[in-house]
Each structure stands twice: as C-alpha cells, then as structure tokens.
C-alpha cells in the first residue's frame, strides 16, 4: 500500500514529465480552467479578438458609410448601438474600431518585444560600457510622458495609424528591454551558461538557444497585460484627434465624437467606452491568471 505522500510525489513527477511539448499547453489549460476570473478573461479576449479578426464579415453596415440611418439615433433593431452624428452605424464602427485597436496592439507590441529583446539581451550580456549606454538610453526614452511624446511625434510625422504604432512601440521598447536585461544578467552566471561557454559556444548561440527561452515566457505575459495600455494610448491619441485618420473608426474617435454630441445622445460614448472596458478587463484577468500559472512562486498547488 502506497502512502498518499508517495502518490503525490509520483504524480508531480509525472506532471513534470508532461511539461514538455504539447503537454505543457494542456496543463496550462487545466490550471486556467480552475481560475474563474482567468477563464472570464479568456472568454472576453476571444470575443474581442475574434470580432476584430472577422470584423469585415460581421459588421452589419459599412462602418464609414454616412447616412445609413438617421443621425444620433438611439439603439434600435436596425442599429443595435444607435447611429452617430453622421448617421453611421455605431455597432459597425465599434467592431471595425476593434480591428484598429488590435492592429496597433499587435504591431506595436510585436515591434517593441523584438527590439526590446534584442537590446535587452545585448545590454545584459554585453560589456559594462554598452550596458550603461543602453540603460541611459532606455531611461531617457522612458522619461517622456507617452501622450506628450505622441502629440509631438504626430505633429512632426502627421497623424496616421503608423505614427500611433511607432509612438507606442518606441515608448514600450525600453520597458521590455530593461526586464530582459535584468533577467539576462541574472542568468549570465548560471552554471549551465558557464558550462556552455566552457564548451566553446558562441554568444549568439548562448543568447538564442539558452537565454532567450528562459526570458521570453514572463515577457509574453507582461506583453499581454500591456495590451489594454496600448489600446488606451491609441484611443487617447485618437480622442485628441491625433490618432488614426478620419473616417477610420477607432474607439477613441467614437468617444470623441460622442463626447462632442453627448447632449444630443449618450449612446456613442457608451458604445465607444464599453469595448475599451471589456478589453482591459479581459487582458488583465487573463494576464494575471497566466502569470500565476507560470510563476512557480505564486503557484498554490506546488
């Protein structure tokens, strides 16, 4: 008869074995299913991302077509979220606005992650003077208030989707780079790295094959939690009229137009605000759940 202790030990060993390849995903999924808030987050994220991806298929009207209905109409069966000051269908604009929001998030976070990783690894693994130089640069860029930096850049480059992406990417790079740098430095003197070096592995191999996989996990979680931040930055710039060009729908422009005509109808503001709230909640819940799962120190079941 085996004691329950040995059973647990064997189980955890078995679990550890499955934390390779497809098994890791499955295990994450199991853990996530136990976390109710995390699941709620996942559902919200799937809905928002899904509606953004399939926006072109599911919008009831062309989001930029004016006068598809009466102006400033309240919600009705024809227009589920009402219409705006130009008679455009607000629901269609909200859905299409999601596309812009997620495009900005994906592109800018993608760029920020890649550059952040590259710079962070270099700073963390490189010589001291390079590290100091990079740190100065990172902290210098981080010192800019994002929106002010955004407004200045927009004035110089002209307002467009790509300017917004550029602004968000540039201001996010130092954040990721700094984290990667610290992680790399912590890992630099680990025995397996020293062993690799002793075996004559070059710096690119050490960084790419051994250090990178160890730092990318936490970084991805961090990025997923940053999605709402990026989306609100885009919405903020668009709200100030400095984001995407009209008539491209963006949650920020829907909010701004709604604000201008809030006395005539509150619906555009509500319609523009809700997706931002849902997205923020979704990514925050999901991000926190994932962090709890991947960070062993926070795992209650270990």
């Amino acid at each position: 008869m085996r004691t329950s202790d040995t059973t647990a030990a064997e189980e955890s060993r078995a679990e550890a074995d499955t934390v390779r390849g497809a098994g890791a995903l499955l295990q994450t999924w199991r853990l996530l299913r136990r976390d109710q808030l995390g699941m709620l987050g996942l559902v919200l994220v799937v809905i928002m991302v899904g509606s953004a991806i399939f926006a072109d298929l599911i919008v009831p009207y062309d989001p930029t077509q004016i006068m598809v209905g009466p102006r400033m109409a309240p919600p009705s069966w024809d227009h589920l979220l009402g219409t705006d000051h130009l008679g455009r269908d607000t629901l269609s604009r909200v859905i299409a606005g999601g596309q812009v929001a997620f495009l900005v998030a994906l592109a800018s976070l993608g760029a920020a992650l890649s550059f952040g990783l590259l710079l962070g690894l270099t700073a963390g693994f490189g010589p001291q003077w390079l590290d100091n130089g990079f740190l100065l640069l990172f902290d210098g860029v981080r010192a800019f208030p994002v929106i002010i930096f955004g407004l200045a850049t927009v004035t110089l480059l002209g307002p467009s989707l790509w300017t917004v992406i550029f602004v968000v990417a540039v201001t996010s790079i130092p954040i990721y780079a700094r984290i990667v740098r610290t992680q790399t430095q912590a890992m630099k003197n680990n025995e397996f790295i020293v062993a690799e070096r002793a075996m004559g592995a070059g710096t690119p191999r050490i960084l790419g094959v051994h250090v990178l996989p160890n730092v990318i996990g936490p970084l991805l979680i961090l990025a997923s939690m940053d999605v709402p931040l990026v989306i609100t930055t885009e919405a903020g710039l668009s709200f100030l009229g400095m984001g995407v060009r009209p008539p491209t729908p963006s949650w920020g422009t829907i909010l701004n137009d709604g604000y201008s005509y809030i006395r005539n109808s509150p619906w555009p503001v509500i319609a523009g605000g809700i997706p931002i709230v849902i997205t923020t909640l979704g990514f925050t819940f999901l991000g926190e759940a994932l962090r709890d799962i991947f960070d062993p120190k926070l795992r209650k079941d270990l």
Partner: protein
Amino acid sequence: MTDQDIRLPKAALDRRGFLKGTAAVGAGAMLANMPITRHAFAQGAKGGTLRARAYADIDALDPGFYQNAYNVDVMNCIYSKLIHYKPGREWDWELQAAESIEQVDSTHIRFKLREGMMFTGGYGEMTAEDVKFSFERIIQHDSPVKGDWGPLERVDVEDKYTGVIVLNEPFQPLWNITLPYGCGHIVSKKAVMEATKNGGNFGMEPPCFSGPYVLAEWKPDQYVKLTRNPDYTGPDEVAFDEIRIFPMDDEKTAEIAYEAGDIDYTGISLASLNRYKQDKPDNTTIREHPSLYYVWIGMNTDHPKLKDKRVRQAIQYAINVPQILQAAYFGQAEVANGIVAPGLIGHRERTIVPPEGNQAKAKQLLAEAGAEGLEVTVDTLNASKWKTIAEIAQAQLAQVGITLQINVQDSGSFWTLGMESEGDRWKDLQLIINRFSMVPDPYYATQWFTCEQVGVWNWERFCNEKYDKLHNKAVSETDPEKRDRMYREMQDIMEESGAYRFLTHEGSPIMYRNTIVEPATRPDGRPLYRYANKA
C-alpha cells in the same frame, strides 16, 4: 514665445501653497454651488473678475504685427487707439485716445490726442510722435498685416498732441478697419525702441501698456490674466478689476465649462444653439449676432495634383454645401456666396457653382482633365465641426471617384501650414478647410488673397493680376456702388479659379451669465471686454 516679462507659472509648489490652493478651490466650489451668494458677492464687491473664453490662445501682442482677432481682443484692453468700434448692433466708431479726428481731404487725416494719456512703466505721456512711430513701423518693418495701412505715406507731427496722417491715395477701409482695429493701437516709441533696438516686432513681450488693463499673467494654454491698470488716465471707466480669458478651441468644452460655472461669457456653437434656446441654463442670456467669418475649402493651386484648373473645378462641383452645413452646423448656418458677408459692401447675391454642386459635371471635368481616381488630402483643425465638414466632403468626393484623405491638425500646427516662413509644409498642402475672421470692410477679406500674400495667408497660392488690380483700385474708390461691383467681381475671379469652395459665414451666438456681466460686443458678436459692464 518664451518670455521673461510675462511671468510663467512657478514650477515648484510647496505644501503650504498647495493647501492654500486647494482651500481656494474649495471655497470657489462652494460659491459656485450657491448662485445667490455669488450674485450678491459679485454685485457687492467693487471690481470683480470677468471670466471669458477665447477660441485660441494669444500668439501675438504687438499690434503692428497682430495676426488674429483673438489677439486683438486682448490688445483692445491693454493698449489705446485713436478711435474704436462702438459697441452695439450697427457698425460705427467712437473716439478713444483722440480728442478729435477729421478727414481734411481724401488723403489727409488730422488727429488730436487727449492730453494726459499715460504709458505704464514710466514711459510718459502718449504723444503724436508715438502715433507716428506706431503707424510707420508697420510699413517699415514689413508687417504681415501692413495691408491694413495700405497707402500710408507718413504721419506728420504738428505739435505734441496733433498730427496728420498722410496717404498716397484715398483709402476707404481706414475708418472701418485700420484705425479702430489692430493696427490702430498706439505703442510707446521709447519703450519699443528700448526693447527691440530697431522698432520691430516685440512679439509676446509688451514693453509697456496704455489701456485700462495690463497683462498681469499669461499661462500659455491656460489663461490670460488682465488686471486694472492703476496708471490709466484715459476716458474709459472699466467695470471689472480683472479679466481672465481662457483659451478653449473646442466649443463644446466651452459650453460645458460655462454650465459648470468656470466661465461666465462665451461664444457657443451653432450646433448647440437650438438646444440652449429651448433649455437655457439659469441666469443666462443668449444673444445671436450675424457673423462676418467666412469658411471655405481651399485648394493649393501650386500642388502638382491640383495644378489643372479643371481638377479644382471638379472638386468645387463635387461638394454639396447645404449638405455639409446640415451636418456640421445642424442647419443653423446659411450658405455663403463668397468671402463678404451679407450687409457689407461687396456681398455677392449668388455663386457661379451652385451650392448643391453637380456630380455629373464634376465627373465630366475630371474625365477631361484625365484625373479619374484622384487621391488628395485635406488638412483641418481637430475640433469636431471641422472633422465633420471634412468627413462629409470626403463622402461627397468619393461619389465622383476622388479619394480624400483627412489630416487632422491641432491648432498650433494648423495655423502655420501654408506659411513659407514656417518650413516646407506648404508644398504638401492640397485641400484645406479654413476660416478667417473679418471686420466690416470688404477690403479686409480680399487682401489675404493677393499675389503678395502667397505663402503668408494665401495658402491656395492663388494669384491673379486682375484681382490684384481690382483690389488696389477698390480701396480708394469713393463711389459705394462701383466699389460694391468691384468686390463682387473679385469674388467671381476667386471662384472661377477653382481654388475656393465657399461654405458659410456661420453665425456668432454668445451666452453670458446675466447676473455677472452685461457684455459689450461689436455687431458681429466679437467681445469688447474693455466696455463690458457689470450686471
């Protein structure tokens, strides 16, 4: 625009200062919640503060280089001039710093200053020499608004207070614009020479004041604070101790600020006019004034895409003006037939291109020019009204196969777009939605579209010899009927060039708290703060 004289806010705020500030805010909030208390307070106290809103922050304080009407609103308070606009519903003028002024003949005007008009800062009494300096420097230093002084030859000083303005040729707008508006303000020769060495533009640093108010503080993008000038000895009794002008370019923001009690006097948008008429805030009066503004969509005639006149005309025909006005102004604005508002000499009764446009004609013109599938950009301010105009125009142009890309600009960057002195952005400028302010003489509107103004305020870079000739001739034409005909012809030339699609003259309703202020305005609703009375 950094400035030592105009005290910028102290960056550091210590704890005590913060507490004081919050206490003051708290007290203010309490007062705001008690309209009766505030009413009694406002009436009981001598002086008090008038809190008003301007649609843009000041960016020029030298009257010789005044740029925009919102700057003149402030100049009106801090400087004095020979004559000024009489507040009311009819265009007229009254004496201010002058004791008398008379037209000796068509090119000579004799004035006599009041005795004892003092400049601040120990710069002494205002003399005819200062008047001469103030007017002549505008021509000498090639001011962007030297057109206001048109054919000024010189000013002859006869004695300490008397002088004669000598013109090369008769100049009708002198009485309607030059003397009572920006360029008519008198600055101290001694003070300006000390500050600038050559008498040029002193920008945002007025070396001294001569009006009943002084500029006490300017916090860029926050407020302009004018306080009573203790040295003022002129004829105007001002009612308020302090005038605080808050720049808010978005009208909706201003309306909300008014309702929240942050300001007591503001222009309101035509979009809100109906709603306010039906549901007025407490203690509020709404006054409607006809506006002289003119709003148009301009086209840069030098841009490669718009060089062909037929392309520009196609855009004119593609734009349906009433549709734009319905969307952007909620049907509260009338179609403009040109740049001169109804009621003034030179107002045109009809346009050449019908206001509703003609899509078939637009398509035909595009085909003739071989410009099908044209892609152009339009630059506009970031307030919702302008964006709406742009978006409707975008939809209208799309119907004739023109793709319009909208560039939204904030006011700081917008107002320098077409200026050659501010970089190369004018080269990329294509379409632009623009609005200019106006004073009651047609000359003031037409002067911005001459060849000389290309790259200054003429952002369409429209240049027509006949137009310029007519413009020069009309200013000295004394027969009103002939003058009227000339200005109408000039607007025909503008429209035929294809560079302009006139939209509207808007309207300028104002709203004020009738327990605080009895505002004084020009007939077009522009504030004359200096003559505002307390309720």
